[in-house]
């Protein structure tokens, strides 16, 4: 179906006149057939065109408004029209797509894109389904996959304003990854929304054995109680998590050096650092008092009758293997969801820091041993990413998350960072996020931060991004040929569809008489 004709423009800004009885939308994909192949075009701007001068147009509209005149000057279809500015995304030739380095010829037709034009969009190795290709608002029957192993290792950024579908996107991403053995995902879930405690969620997946859910409260059957032993915490786990001054950090390190795994207890009980118990020679009394108070608050502990009492997830007698268990689950390609809804932001990040540090160190070790290739990629799903990756946070020094953002891909550990405010994240880190799944963003500076760090040239896509509706996204990735507009299906629909294909397996309960 012909939708318009090329009339002028330049490379990167081809001007097409829209056929009067057709409609061209912002973000729509179109095809220009050329002798060299099919040029895939995408609309990034729409403007009015007219053969009539501006003065006469104003006159006609005035007469229509004021005198209710139906005066038309010349043939309306010929004289007044819409123009679309579009850019070429790819040249498709013999089923392969490459960069297009030429313009479609003058007055050549552009037509609607069809499924068969997009046969080059095949599923890669380790396919991770992200959604259906979208042409404007029209959802096409073309599944969009990226190589999940590469995408997770090279970090994913999900920027978008509240209510544009970030949670649905992440739910889908997790749902589609749960049965993949090439990746293990750690999800710090501050809204306790992914497991599906009281609604549809990951627990409803046929492969739910690949899901581990840790929660500190009202543990559902099959889920694990989140308890972490104090002995697994080290001073460096607080980097980027809580505001400790340099002297306070040094005090913590001194205690760790002296008391090892029992350093927190030693600080709270104010155990001596030297035989003469003169702490003043190491640091001021107030420093220790602040550290002690901060630790008691962060770790939800009380100190009474010269004894330490733990009230929260951190405890003295249990949770010896929790961090190890989570790491093993990730290494076995599972999704680990940690319910952090009842935690303060600092505690949530501390839990994340504990697990992430352990996983990262293990993977570094595997690399030195030459065993990394056989391990699944691990990605840490982080909500409100600027809390640990923000410029202001990183001014106080690096933390485990920023370290992973910079060098994690070499060790198959990546981040899936979700944020409303990408502009708070340093450009270097944004540029390291090699896949961005962009949802609707209203604020110009936030869009600009994404455009400036995208894997493809999105300099003309500002309006396109601003106009992304709920459930619409634009993927820009080092692992895709062009920035792909997609439609994200409703999570409930995905679950319902997958249930249709499930076969009931006869269960064996031998031994129960």
């Amino acid at each position, binding site marked *: 179906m012909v939708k318009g004709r090329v009339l002028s423009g330049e490379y990167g800004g081809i001007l097409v006149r829209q056929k009067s009885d057709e409609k061209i939308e912002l973000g729509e994909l179109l095809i220009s057939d050329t002798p060299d192949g099919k040029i895939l075009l995408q609309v990034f701007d729409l403007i009015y065109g007219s053969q009539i001068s501006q003065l006469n147009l104003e006159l006609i509209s005035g007469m229509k408004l004021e005198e209710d005149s139906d005066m038309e000057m010349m043939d309306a279809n010929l004289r007044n029209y819409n123009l679309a500015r579009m850019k070429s995304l790819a040249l498709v030739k013999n089923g392969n797509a490459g960069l297009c380095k030429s313009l479609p010829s003058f007055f050549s037709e552009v037509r609607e894109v069809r499924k068969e034009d997009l046969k080059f969009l095949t599923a890669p190795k380790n396919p991770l389904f992200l959604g259906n290709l979208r042409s404007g608002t029209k959802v096409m029957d073309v599944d969009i996959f990226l190589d999940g192993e590469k995408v997770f290792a090279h970090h994913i950024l999900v920027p978008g304003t509240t209510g544009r579908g970030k949670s649905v996107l992440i739910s889908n991403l997790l749902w589609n990854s749960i049965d993949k*053995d090439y990746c293990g995902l750690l999800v710090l879930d501050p809204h306790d929304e992914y497991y599906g405690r009281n609604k549809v969620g990951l627990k409803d997946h046929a492969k739910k054995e690949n899901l581990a859910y840790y929660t500190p409260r009202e543990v559902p*059957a099959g889920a694990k109680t989140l308890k972490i032993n104090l002995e697994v915490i080290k001073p460096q786990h607080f980097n980027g998590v809580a505001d400790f001054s340099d002297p306070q950090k040094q005090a913590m390190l001194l205690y760790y050096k002296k008391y090892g795994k029992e350093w927190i207890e030693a600080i709270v009980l104010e155990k001596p650092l030297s035989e003469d118990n003169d702490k003043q020679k190491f640091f001021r009394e107030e420093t220790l008092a602040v550290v002690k108070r901060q630790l008691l608050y962060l770790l939800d502990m009380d100190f009474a009758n010269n004894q330490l009492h733990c009230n929260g997830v951190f405890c003295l007698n249990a*949770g*010896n293997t929790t961090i190890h268990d989570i790491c093993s689950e990730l290494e076995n390609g599972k999704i680990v969801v940690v319910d952090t809804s009842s935690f303060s932001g600092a505690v949530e990040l501390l839990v994340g820091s504990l697990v992430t540090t352990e996983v990262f160190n293990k993977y570094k070790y595997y690399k030195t041993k030459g065993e990394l290739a056989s391990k699944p990629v691990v990605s840490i799903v982080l909500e409100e990413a600027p809390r640990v990756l923000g410029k202001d946070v990183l001014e106080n020094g690096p933390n485990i998350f920023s370290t992973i953002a910079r060098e994690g891909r070499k060790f198959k550990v990546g981040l899936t960072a979700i944020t409303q405010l990408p502009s708070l994240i340093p450009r270097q880190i944004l540029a390291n996020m090699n896949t961005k799944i962009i949802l609707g963003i209203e604020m110009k500076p936030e869009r600009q931060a994404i455009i400036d760090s995208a894997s493809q040239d999105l300099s003309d896509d500002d309006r396109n991004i601003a106009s992304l509706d709920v459930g619409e996204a634009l993927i820009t990735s080092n692992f895709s040929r062009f920035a792909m507009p997609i439609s994200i299906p409703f999570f409930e629909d995905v679950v319902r569809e997958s249930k249709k294909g499930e076969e009931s397996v006869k269960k064996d309960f031998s031994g129960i008489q």
Partner: protein
Amino acid sequence: MKFAHLADCHIGSWRDPKLRDASTLAFGKAIDKCVEENVDFILVAGDLFNTSLPSIDGLKIVVSKLKEVKDKEIGVYIVAGSHDFSPSGKTMLDVLENAGLIVNVAKGEVVEDKIKLNFSVDAKTGVKITGMLGKKGGLEKGYYENLMTEDIEQEEGYKIFMFHSLITELKPKSLEKVDSHPISLLPKKFNYYAGGHPHFVHNEVQEGYGRITYPGPLFPNNFKELEELGNGGFYIVEDEKIEWHPIQIYNTFPINIRVEHKVPEQIRDEILAQINNKEFNNTIVTIRVSGVLESGKISDINFKEIFNQIYDKSAYFVMKNTNALTTKEFEEIKVDAGSVKEVEENLIKEHLGQVKVEGMDNAREEGLIKDLMHSLSTEKKEGERVVDFEKRVKSEISKLVNL
């Protein structure tokens, strides 16, 4: 009300006849103590035997002890454990139950693909007991996931839940690599949870559940346990009072030598120095040597002389472990210290997923391998015809691989 809680007796576990007798003796001693303490009933939370079809020697003693308590009207309630469960259903536990010597409490029915457990009621006390069996590789998890908990949770009266699984939240650091299940899989609101499977002693009241206990094995089941536990034991529970009773069959004397920068002669001298001026009456002596020898071979350490000297000091049994000992010449060889079971586990894990079978994930594959190894290691029983033995093994294998 007074009852005893035993687990992991592993009758017939040791290869060496002298140690194999020890687990049987420990069982006998524990039963004697139960009778002496006048308990109302006895719980055995899995792995009474080390295999589903144990040898006659151990069986004879177990049966005579069970008969003794039956005559005294002391009920014995059990669940099958990962060692004495058989997927084919052919286990000695069934024989003992049919003879009226024990009651297997893992009883129930399957209703719409869910397990509905029934209670066995102890006639003397009215205590209601139910439980879940244990399987190799933690495969009982699927049973728990399909357990109807509401009815048994709402049942009134004093209730006991027997189980044979390691609970994740109670796992000590030393067992971090062992398969476990979250506590949330257990039904709630029982008074006492009689656990078995992990070989450590644990007793703790868990919020929302009740008292969850592991008595540990009745007798150490491998070299490491002999070193670390020394002896086994069991619980006697009287109303709210719970007491762990050790079962001392033999004393143990562990010797642990690190050999860094040492030569075989130094190792020998060091071990002999440790046994100097000591008597080992009724004692099992364990010698663990680990590290890298400065020079020479492992066989250069004169263990024969060391063993002789220890036996001369009246030791009951001497054993050594040099799994983590290597020499400089062979240092590059990867050495994984641990029991045979740990080595097997590691080997299985390393090779998982090499053959792709539809519908078979790593967890199922691991479970199947362990079940197959278990079934294929079955030995021919005394008096069993070759043809019957083959038929029995084939039947188990067929069931496992769904033929």
